[in-house]
C-alpha cells in the first residue's frame, strides 16, 4: 500500500503538470472506447447521450484547477477562459447548463462510480472498480 502511495505521489505531480488524462465512465457503461470528437460533443453540450443512445451526464472540475485547463486545451484546443465564455453564451441563451463541477478527483471518481450515465475526466491513476477508462488524453507539449 505504501508502495502504491509512493507511486501515486510520484505520478501525481506528473499528472498535475502535464501527465496523461483519462476519460472515465461508470463501470456498467457498455462503452469501451470513445473518440475524441464524441468526448468533445459530450463535454461541450452538443450531445446529451452516449453514442449508443444512453443518456450522459458530464462532470467537470472546479474552475481554475490546472487539470481543467489542461483537459480542455488538450481536448478542444481552447483555453479554459474560452470554454467558460462558450458556456456563458449558452447559459445566457437559456435551457443549457454547464457540467456539474467538483473540487477533487476523488469527488469526481465517487460521483462517476455512483452514476451509470456519468462521464468525467481525471488524471491517469489506478482507478476503483466502479469506473472505467474510455479514452486517454495525452496533453500536448
Amino acid at each position, binding site marked *: 500500500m505504501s508502495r502504491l502511495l509512493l507511486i501515486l505521489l510520484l505520478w501525481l505531480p506528473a499528472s498535475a503538470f502535464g501527465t496523461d488524462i483519462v476519460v472515465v465512465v461508470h463501470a456498467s457503461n457498455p462503452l469501451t472506447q470513445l473518440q475524441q470528437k464524441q468526448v468533445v460533443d459530450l463535454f461541450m453540450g452538443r450531445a446529451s447521450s452516449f453514442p449508443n443512445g444512453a443518456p450522459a451526464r458530464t462532470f467537470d472540475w472546479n474552475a481554475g484547477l490546472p487539470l481543467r485547463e489542461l483537459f480542455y486545451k488538450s481536448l478542444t484546443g481552447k483555453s479554459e477562459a474560452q470554454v467558460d465564455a462558450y458556456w456563458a453564451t*449558452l447559459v445566457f441563451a437559456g435551457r443549457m447548463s454547464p457540467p456539474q463541477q467538483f473540487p477533487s478527483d476523488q469527488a469526481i471518481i465517487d460521483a462517476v462510480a455512483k452514476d451509470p450515465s456519468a462521464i468525467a475526466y481525471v488524471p491517469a491513476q489506478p482507478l476503483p472498480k466502479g469506473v472505467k477508462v474510455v479514452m486517454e488524453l495525452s496533453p500536448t507539449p
Partner: protein
Amino acid sequence: MNIRSLHIKVSLSVATAALLVVALSSQYFYQHSYQQSFADSERSVQQLLETVRATAAIAAYVGNRELAQQVVDGLAQNDIVTGARITVGNEVIGQQGKAPPNPRRAPVTLALYGPFDEEEIVGELAVMPNSSLIELRARDSAMATAIGLAAQAAVVALLVLILVYWMMTRPLVNLSGRLHRITPGDGGRIPVTGLHRGDEIGQLSGDINALLHTVEAMLEEERQLRHRVELLETRFRGIFEDSSAGIFLVRDGGLLITANPAFFRLTGLSEQQPAGSGHENLANSVFLDSLEAGSLIQLAAVTGRPHSADLRLRQSMADGRERWVHCIFSPAGSRQQTATIEGVMYDVTERKHAERRSRELAETDTLTGLSNRQSVEDALHTLINQRGPGDNRFAVLLIDLDRFKFINDTYGHDAGDRVLVAIAQRLRKLVRDSDVVARIGGDEFLLLLNHAGNLQMVQRIAQKILDAQQVPIAVQPGVLEVVGMSIGIALYPEHGDNPLSLRKHADQAMYQVKRSGKNRFAIYDPSHDHSISQGE
C-alpha cells in the same frame, strides 16, 4: 435684350458647357457612388455576419434554438437585413423575418464551422439583405453626390459667367455700343478706362480711336476738297449756263455730247434730247453752212488747233432773217480721247446784217439801186485781177445823158430823178445779171459787160441801149420827153490793162460822140487817140 449679343452668347455657351459637364459627371458619379454605396452595404452585411459568426456557430454546433433565435433576432434588428436564418443540416433552428416573395438577390450565406473543430461545418447562417433599402440608400447617396456636384458646377459656371461678363463681355459690349454710336466725323472717341489700360480691350479702343482720327482727318480733307470743287463747279456752271454764247461738245466728228442752254436757244434744238443719242450730225442739223461747219470740225480735230468762221444756222431769226453765229471749234480734252471738239458760238446776226447793210449802202446808188462809183471800180479791179491774159475780154461802157440838164432845169429835180430811175431800169433790163450797171455821177452811167466775146456783140448791145432811149419818159404827168445818150466804149485788154486807162479811153470815146452830135456810141480808137467806130 438682343438675343445675338455677345453676353447672351457667352452665357449660353458657359451654361451649356456647364450643363453638359454636370450631366456627364453626374451620370458618372451617380453610377460610381451608387455602386460604392451598394458595395458598402454588401460589406456591411458581410461584417454583420462576421460579428455574429462565432455565436451562430455555437448555436449551430449545439443545436441551441434559443441562442440561434437570439442571433437571428439580433441580425434582423439591422435595417439592411430583412431576414436571417440558421440551419443545421436541413433543420432550421432559428429564423427571423421572411424572405421576399421574389428575392432579387440570393441570400447571403455563411458556413458555420464547429467551435472546436475548424474542419466540420456544423450549419449555415443565411441573411436576406434589405435590397430595396440598400438600393434606396445607394440612390440617395448617389443623388446627393450628383446634386452636390451639379451645384458645385453651377456655382463655378456662375462665377465664370460673372467674371467673364465683368472682365470681357461687358467691356466689349460697352466698346461695341460706344463705337456703334460714333459717326466718323462727329469727333466721338472711345474712353479707355484704367481697368483696361494695357490689355487687349484697351489696345482695341486705342486702335479704334486712332482709326477714327485717321478717318476723320481724311473726311475733313475730302470735305474741303469737295467744297473747293463745288465752288469751282458752281462758278464754271454759272459761266456755262449763263453764258450768252452757245457752248457745246461734239465727238466723232459731229455727234453732240453736251451743250448749254444758250446753244439750244440759238439752234432751236430740243434740250430734252438726251446727250449722245443724236444720230444726226451736228453740222447738218444745226448749220445752214453744213459743209463748212463739218470741215471746220474735222480741221480742228486733225490740226489740234482752233478754227473759226461766221456760219449761218438753220434756225432763222424771229423776223425771218438769217441767223449768223461766229463759231470757234477747238480740240478738247487730251489727245488720247477720240477727237472731242469743243464749240463756242455767239450770235453775230445783228453785226452781220449791219455789215451787209453798210456794204450795200456803200455799193449802191440810193436813187436808182444801181451800183455806185466805188462799187463799180471795185468790180473793175476784181475783173482785171481775176482774169488771166486769155479768155478775159470785157467791155467798159461810159454813158452820159444828152438832155438831162435841160430837163432838170425845166421840170425840176423830181423830173430829173424820174428820168434817172427810168434809164437805170432800162439799162438793167438790157444787160445780163452778171453784168454791172452803175451810176457814177449826176447823169453818168458805167456798164461792165462780162464775156463780151467780140466787138460785134458789144456794138449790138450798145445799139440796143441807144434804141431803147427812143421811148419817151414821163417827166411830169402828161409831159413826155425823149432823153438821148452818148456812149463811149473801151475794151479790155485792147484799150487798157488797168481801170484808170480803161475809164480814160471810154471817156475819150464818149466825148468824141458828144462833139459829133450826141445820141450815138463810139469805140475808142488807139491809133489817133480818137474814137474810130461810131454807132448811130
